[in-house]
C-alpha cells in the first residue's frame, strides 16, 4: 500500500523553517526552507513546484497531511488557510497531525513530556502518562527545568519532520477531519498574548 500512495506533507508550524514533502509512490521529494517566517511567500509556490516536478495535479494525490501544531500561530494559519481552500475546491482528502503525535509515534511512547519551541524561550508542552493527558500549556525554559523531572523529554525540531507511517495510518483509517471546522492546535487562548 505504502509504495502506491501519492501524498503531500505540509509543516508550517515552526517560524524558522518550512517543510513540504511529496510522496509519489516510490519517489520522495522534499523542500526544507530554513528561513524565518517564509511560509507566506514560499508555501504555495513550493507546493506548485513539487507537484510540477512530478507532473502531478492536486487531484492526482491520495491525500494531503497537514501539521496542526502547536507552533507559530501565523505559520499554522497560513498552512490551514491554504489547505482548507484546496480541500474546498478539489475535495482532496486531508489528514492532520500534531507535533506531539509525531513525537509519540516516532519514539513509540505514551509517557513523557513532549515539547515544541514557542517564542521568547518558551515551550508548548504536553505531559502524558501512559496515554492520559496530564497537563498541557506553555512554559518557560527555566520553569521547565524544575517540573515534571520524573518524565522523559522529547523535543520537536527540524530533525523530527518525517512521519510517513503515522500519516498513512491516518489515511488508511480514514481519519479525515471536517476541514470546514479544522483549526490549528493553539493550546492557549488568543487574548493572552495580545
Amino acid at each position: 500500500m505504502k509504495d502506491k500512495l501519492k501524498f503531500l506533507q505540509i509543516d508550517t508550524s515552526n517560524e524558522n523553517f518550512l517543510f513540504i514533502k511529496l510522496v509519489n509512490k516510490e519517489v520522495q521529494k522534499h523542500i526544507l526552507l530554513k528561513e524565518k517566517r517564509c511560509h507566506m511567500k514560499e508555501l504555495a509556490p513550493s507546493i506548485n513546484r513539487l507537484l510540477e516536478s512530478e507532473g502531478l495535479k492536486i487531484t492526482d494525490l491520495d491525500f494531503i497531511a497537514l501539521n496542526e501544531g502547536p507552533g507559530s500561530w501565523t505559520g499554522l494559519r497560513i498552512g490551514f488557510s491554504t489547505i482548507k481552500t484546496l480541500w474546498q475546491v478539489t475535495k482532496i482528502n486531508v489528514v492532520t497531525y500534531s507535533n506531539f503525535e509525531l513525537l509519540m509515534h516516532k519514539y513509540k511512547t505514551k509517557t513523557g513530556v513532549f515539547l515544541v519551541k514557542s517564542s521568547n524561550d518558551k515551550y508548548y508542552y504536553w505531559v502524558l502518562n501512559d496515554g492520559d493527558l496530564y497537563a498541557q500549556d506553555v512554559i518557560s525554559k527555566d520553569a521547565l527545568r524544575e517540573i515534571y523531572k520524573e518524565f522523559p523529554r522529547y523535543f520537536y525540531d527540524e530533525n523530527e519532520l518525517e512521519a510517513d507511517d503515522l500519516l498513512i495510518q491516518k489515511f488508511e483509517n480514514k481519519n479525515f477531519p471536517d476541514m470546514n471546522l479544522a483549526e490549528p492546535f493553539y493550546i492557549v487562548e488568543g487574548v493572552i498574548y495580545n
Partner: protein
Amino acid sequence: MKNDVYILGIETSCDDTSIAIVKNGTEVLSNIIWNQNKTHEKFGGIVPELGARRHLQVINFVLEEAMKEAKISFQEISAIAVNNQKGLIRSLVVGVSAAKSLALALKIPLISVHHIEGHIYSNILSHPEIEFPHLCLTVSGGHNLLVLINNHFNYEIIGNTLDDAAGEVFDKVARFVGLGFPGGPAIDKLSVAGDAKKYFMARPMLDQDNFDFSFSGLKTESTRLYDKIKNNSDFKLEDFTASFQQAIVDTLIGKSYKALKKYNLNSISVVGGVSANQKLRSEFEKYAQKYNFKVYFPELKLTTDNAAMIASAGYFKFLNQDFSGLDLEVFTDREL
C-alpha cells in the same frame, strides 16, 4: 464576442471576512461579509489574534456562500483578486493564503490589490460613470487620504493622515463616553437629536495650506471637554456627540473643497467606513450644491471593508494583465 470576466475578490484586512464575485468589474453577483464585531466588542477594540483566528474559522463558509449566491462554479472564475497591501498581518495572511490556494488549484491568475485601491473602486462599482481626473477622499478607522486619481491605477496622494484617522477618533471618543464599539455608527445615530452648535471644537489644520489631516488633538480636546461638562445640569450627550461630529465633518469637507479648487476638479468620491456617516453625506451634498461640484458616495453596503471593491479593482488590473506570482507577500501598510 467578448467573454465575461468573473473576478473572485478576498478581503481580510481587519475584522471583516469578505469574499465576492464581480462580473466585468461592476456587476456584483455576491458580496458576503462576515463581521466580527461580536468577537471584539467586549475588548473595546480589535484584538488582532482573535481576529485572525475568526477569519480562519469562517473563511470556508464565506467562500461557499459567495459561490452559492453568485450561482457560478469555480471553473468559471477568471482570476482571484486579494488585498495584500494594508491591514493586520495576522488577518491578511488568512485571505492571501486562501487566494493563492484558489489560484493554484484552478490555474488562474492572482491579482494583488491595495486596500485603499479597493475603497477607491467601491465608488466605481456604484458609479461607473465617474470620469478621470477625479478626487477621492478615503476616510475610515485606518486611513484618511485625499487622492488625486488621474486614471485607472494612476494615483497621487495629496493629503495624508498625520496621526489618528477620523474613524479611529470616532471609535475612541465613542468608547470614552460609553457608546461602545464600533463607535462611529453610534455617534451618528445619537447626534441626530443633538445640537451641533452647542459646543465648539477645533477644526484641525483647516487653516493650513496643505491637505493633510490630524485628528488626535480633537480627540484629546473632546474627551477633556466631556470630562469638564458631563456633570452640568444642562448636559446632553447628543449635543456633545453632534458637536464633535460636526468638527470632523467640517474638517473633511473643508479640506476636500480646498483640494478640488486647487486642482481645478469638479467631482469627488468619498469612500471608506466613515463615508456611511449620514451627517457627512448630507453636509457634503449641501456643499456640493452650493459650490457646484459633484460628490459620489458608494452604496452603504460598500462603505465598510468588503471584497466586491477588491474584485472590481482586480477586474481593471485583469484587463491590464497585471498579475502576481504565488510568492505574493503581505504588507501591513504599503504606500498606495
